[in-house]
């Protein structure tokens, strides 16, 4: 997928299998001119590998809703090939806020009246 796609968008959770799994070995497979998008989690990126990718491949682009810790270096040196939101804002919409509140209310009623535990996490 990384070899043939012009854009790769990350939507993996952060867990022991995925943390730092987006590393140089994988990124270096990316198609020429490829853009990586991360709205998932900061931890899934191997940030040293990311910087190496910027240094080794002047066609690589990275845009993210969760800026890496080495954001300043990347922004200073490769400003036209990166973009980071000032703060995590993917879920920050009025609609998402309303949807979550309504879902929470319905889930409480379903649980208390029908013992519905569909979204239980503990």
């Amino acid at each position: 997928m990384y070899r043939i796609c012009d854009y790769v968008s990350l939507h993996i959770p952060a867990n022991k299998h995925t943390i730092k799994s987006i590393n140089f070995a994988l990124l270096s497979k990316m198609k020429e001119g490829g853009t990586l998008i991360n709205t998932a989690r900061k931890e899934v990126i191997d940030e040293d590998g990311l910087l190496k990718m910027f240094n080794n491949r002047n066609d690589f682009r990275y845009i993210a809703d969760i800026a890496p810790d080495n954001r300043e270096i990347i922004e200073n040196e490769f400003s036209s090939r990166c973009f980071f939101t000032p703060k995590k804002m993917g879920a920050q919409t009025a609609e998402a806020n309303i949807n979550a509140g309504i879902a929470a209310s319905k889930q409480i009623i379903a649980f208390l009246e029908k013992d519905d535990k569909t979204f239980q996490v503990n």
Partner: protein
Amino acid sequence: MTKVLVATVKPFAEAAVSQIKTIFEKSGYDCRFFEKYETQDDLKKAVVDAEALIIRSDKITAEIMDAAPKLKIVVRAGAGFDNVDLAAATARNIVVMNTPGQNSNAVAELVLGMMVFQARNHFDGKPGTELKGKKLGIHAYGHVGQNVARIAKGFGMEVFAFDPFVDKKVIEADDVSVFDNVE
């Protein structure tokens, strides 16, 4: 009447508050809002008679649970739930839930928005490229990934996905091609 408390340091949008009120009123629940509180001690006092609790990023510790002897359920309106002490809840027979998927369209729209921004050189006035006809690989086909696929198709992109935990047929039903290997 079952008592529901909506405890939010960062309150819900007004539209959400009125819809939450309506939902509980219609079902005969007593729903109260406790917003912009300042300390965990204030929260402790507010939860005393709550049987159900809706929160956002609010911290629900063992201490808060002990202050709420009638509490049966805590719902975190949102995806992440590391602000709730799950072990403490389980030990007290309290069910904890999140509301997965409710923000996934918001995230997906940002993905495509950032892609256009990058493809058009950060809107600096110079000519850029289009998304139409380009290949997009979605790494994990969950709630957000599926929404990204739907929107990207509207742009005329060719969409691929890698997610070993989702049935291939489910992904292909969205007219998305599946990769068995992430590379």
